[in-house]
């Protein structure tokens, strides 16, 4: 009986799955067009899965092995099951035993894997969703166990008459359960949807450049520009269907593992943002309905079940509630911790900025000080509304060479808007001192410099960003320099990663940009700087998001600190897992209230590391961390520490050769 029943079950499950898949594809295609190479993407998919995805999943070894056994076992078992039971190859003389044996092995591996899935579900951490996800381990065991048992008679390991009677009926019921979850549920919105949507999402990812190739890993963190010349193109995302189809596909790939939730600084601070819930809100939006069936942690302070949406309805309600509240979108600090942790490679920050663009450009609803800051950027080219002519007042006594006078220099020192901030002016003065001691030939743009556009862009005002960027590009094109050095990672990121897209024909906008810590490390390696030994206390280092996660520079600041003779006390969350200071993405401007403040939590991390001084490399981080009341640690920029430790450099001519580079000390990952 099983022999006749199994092929029917398998093929009807497959047919229903195909129907569900076409329905799901239609849902994704409600999004706007986006051109991705379809065949090339599909061809690259296995590598993206096996290398890039597993690089992220592999940070949790137990879960990684569990997934390899379960998913690998399932894929193999499903293919073999179709061959053995579906096409009846199991009864063939030559192939039967081999295929059947392999099927037994695959389903056994999957069964073992699903035992580990079940173990994790016994006391699931808060970040995991419950609901249908709680039944998944049982479904996995039903599928693998059912297939295993049903294969035994085929191989003659059980008597043939096992295939009839009550036992066989029960076995068939178990197989139906397994097939229902694993095959039917995959395309009809069950937990296994992540496998179907996830595989296609990897193939058609909107940032194909972020995946590693055989030449090595790459990084793609710059926001994509809006086409402002096309007056019919929507300005940002107002309804779920305004996302591109592959963004919608990406949301659908979410496996609700909650790793994003666990690292999100806004969520930890009790601000109304949970990245996992936000992605699930988008899934609700693309299929239409209410979020009542969501079973994970909500956006803090926002009960589940009150929000609803449709593919063509507004995401943020014009009056009252819709899919998402505006505060949720404005809570994000764009620190990219969620993107870094997401095993499905979902781009949360892109989606949030897309929705912010709609709020700012179409509705004029940038909250709190946002509108004022944008007005200032438009009128004075800096967010504080200061006289642009006073940009160099802090350096009145430093006699800085101006690009307008010298026309060319080895290094263009980009000051950033910290030039108007008295705290950051100390950092800048320290950096100038270091550059002078190392005899670097540098110049500044002075009053020709404008805000890089970082804040405007992250507040959603793409128009102001592009205006500022184009003017900066035009200014930079007038002068010749080898590289730009800046102590502001936000300017660093925007100049290095986001201006390139705005280049006009004949005016390239590709710059070699260095963070000051990288540049100081290079100067030290070249023997142009020498430091007195460190006499202070214990020091820790806070990785700025826009330097670390956005640009992958974890090492140079640590090399500089080591060169200073400092032995770092790393915080629990450092390196690529560094926790945001709360200063990015315009979050201090939009200032969405929470239960705690993000910089307070970060300063607490510093305290737990036992350090009395925290070294930083970003004006935003300095401002946020120094704003902590009753802080246990002092906040100093790397440039200040270096400037304080400077001693006469050893004569380069006397020693003859530059010093050997310091042994590379990468940040240790603490899992």
């Amino acid at each position, binding site marked *: 009986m099983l022999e006749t029943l199994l092929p029917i079950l398998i093929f009807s499950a497959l047919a229903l799955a195909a129907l569900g898949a076409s329905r799901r594809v239609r849902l994704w295609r409600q999004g706007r067009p986006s051109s991705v190479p379809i065949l090339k993407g599909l061809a690259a998919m296995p590598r993206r899965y096996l290398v890039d995805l597993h690089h992220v999943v592999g940070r949790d070894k137990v879960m990684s092995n569990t997934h390899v056994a379960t998913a690998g076992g399932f894929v193999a078992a499903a293919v073999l099951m179709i061959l053995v039971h579906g096409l009846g190859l199991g009864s063939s003389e030559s192939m039967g035993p081999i295929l059947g044996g392999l099927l037994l092995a695959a389903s056994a591996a999957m069964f073992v894997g699903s035992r580990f899935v079940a173990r994790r579900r016994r006391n699931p951490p808060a970040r995991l969703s419950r609901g249908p996800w709680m039944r998944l381990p049982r479904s996995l065991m039903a599928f693998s166990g059912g297939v295993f048992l049903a294969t035994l008679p085929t191989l003659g390991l059980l008597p043939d008459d096992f295939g009839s009677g009550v036992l066989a009926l029960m076995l068939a019921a178990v197989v139906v359960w397994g097939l229902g979850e694993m095959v039917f549920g995959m395309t009809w919105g069950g937990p296994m949807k992540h496998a179907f949507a996830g595989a296609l999402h990897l193939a058609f990812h909107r940032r194909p450049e972020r995946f590693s190739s055989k030449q090595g890993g790459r990084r793609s963190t710059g926001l994509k520009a809006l086409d402002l010349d096309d007056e019919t193109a929507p300005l940002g995302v107002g309804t779920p269907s305004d996302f591109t189809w592959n963004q919608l596909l990406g949301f659908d790939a979410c496996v609700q593992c909650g790793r994003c939730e666990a690292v999100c600084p806004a969520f930890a601070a009790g601000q109304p943002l949970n990245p996992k819930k936000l992605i699930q809100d988008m899934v609700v939006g693309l299929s239409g309905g209410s979020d009542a069936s969501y079973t994970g942690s909500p956006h803090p302070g926002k009960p589940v079940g009150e929000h609803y949406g449709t593919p063509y309805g507004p995401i943020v309600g014009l009056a009252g509630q819709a899919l998402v509240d505006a505060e949720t979108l404005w809570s994000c600090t764009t620190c990219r911790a969620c993107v870094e942790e997401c095993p499905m490679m979902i781009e949360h920050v892109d989606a949030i900025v897309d929705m912010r663009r709609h709020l*700012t450009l179409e509705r004029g609803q940038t909250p709190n000080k946002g509108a004022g800051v944008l007005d200032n950027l438009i*009128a004075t080219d800096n967010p504080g509304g200061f006289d642009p002519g006073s940009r160099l007042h802090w350096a009145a006594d430093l006699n800085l060479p101006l690009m307008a006078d010298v026309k060319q220099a080895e290094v263009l020192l980009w000051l950033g808007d910290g030039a108007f901030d008295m705290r950051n002016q100390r950092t800048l003065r320290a950096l100038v001192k270091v550059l002078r001691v190392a005899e670097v030939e540098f110049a500044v743009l002075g009053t020709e410099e404008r805000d890089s556009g970082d804040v405007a862009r992250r507040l959603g005002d793409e128009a102001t960003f592009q205006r500022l960027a184009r003017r900066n590009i035009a200014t930079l094109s007038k002068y010749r320099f080898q590289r730009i050095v800046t102590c502001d990672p936000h300017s660093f990121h925007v100049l290095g990663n986001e201006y390139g897209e705005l280049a006009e024909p004949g005016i390239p906008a590709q710059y070699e940009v260095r963070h000051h810590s990288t540049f100081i490390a290079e100067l030290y390696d070249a023997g142009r700087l020498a430091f007195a030994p460190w006499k202070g206390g214990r020091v820790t280092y806070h990785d700025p998001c826009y330097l670390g996660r956005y640009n992958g520079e974890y090492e140079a600041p640590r090399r500089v600190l080591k060169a200073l003779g400092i032995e770092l006390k790393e915080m629990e969350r450092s390196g690529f897992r560094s926790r945001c200071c709360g200063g990015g993405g315009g979050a201090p401007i939009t200032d969405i209230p929470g239960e705690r403040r993000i910089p307070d939590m970060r300063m607490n991390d510093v305290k737990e590391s036992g350090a009395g001084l925290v070294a930083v490399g970003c004006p935003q981080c300095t401002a946020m961390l120094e704003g902590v009341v009753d802080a246990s640690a002092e906040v100093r920029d790397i440039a200040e520490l270096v400037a304080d430790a400077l001693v006469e450099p050893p004569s380069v001519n006397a020693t003859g050769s530059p010093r050997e580079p310091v042994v590379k000390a990468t940040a240790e990952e603490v899992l």
Partner: protein
Amino acid sequence: MQPEQQGLEVAVLVSVGRHPITGRARRAEQDARGVELALTLASELPGTRINVLHAGQQDINSEVALRGYLGMGLNSLTLLEQPEGSDAIAALAAYLTKALPPLVLTGTRAECGEGSGLLPYALAERLGWPLVNGLAAVETIENGVVTLLQALPRGQRRRLKVRLPAIVSVDEAGPVARQSAFGPARRAKFIVTSAIHEPDRELTQWHLAPARKRPKRLKIVKAASARDRFKAAASKAGGKSGQVLSDVTPEQGAVAILKLLEEEDVLR
């Protein structure tokens, strides 16, 4: 607020503003507050039509500034096109006499040009309409009578009933203008009509020079404690020598003002 039976038309006069630090063209602060008042009125009184008027020439600078108003959520702006150096008052008066909007809102003083703050008065004189300055809020509009809150110094408010049509000017007491959004600003249309060209004769006789910083009278506070300093900062300034004149003839009032100006060395 009681809804008016038929839709009310509100005309808002807007000018090209100028940023105080960089001098870049922008929506003028006070005029934008006027537009904000009109938009609030429109959301409270369904059927209200807002007609935003600007008299002047059309160039890149004025377009940037005028689109700043449109980005607040307007569909169009009526531009009474005039060559440079024309008198805006004549064009506006001619247009308003024909269109007869019951309520005209305007900023108190332009941010560039003469900036004398006389336009609302000159316009009211020419049209023969009542004028109210320092508008804080529009309360009700019933049977052709509008109830307004007028802002007085030190946060005081005065309720006024004014028969329409009327001109009402807005200053810093008006509600803060909402954010101007790029999308609506880009989509909105200019309705350009050519206006009568009457050269501004007075302007040609003026001598224009960059403004000097005017000396400010220092308020010297001798305070020993923070509490004293706070009290000094919060107290009324120079309340000792003030004088309230009531029930006096205009001549008596004028004499008193003249006397004060001479005392303060404003007139010599």
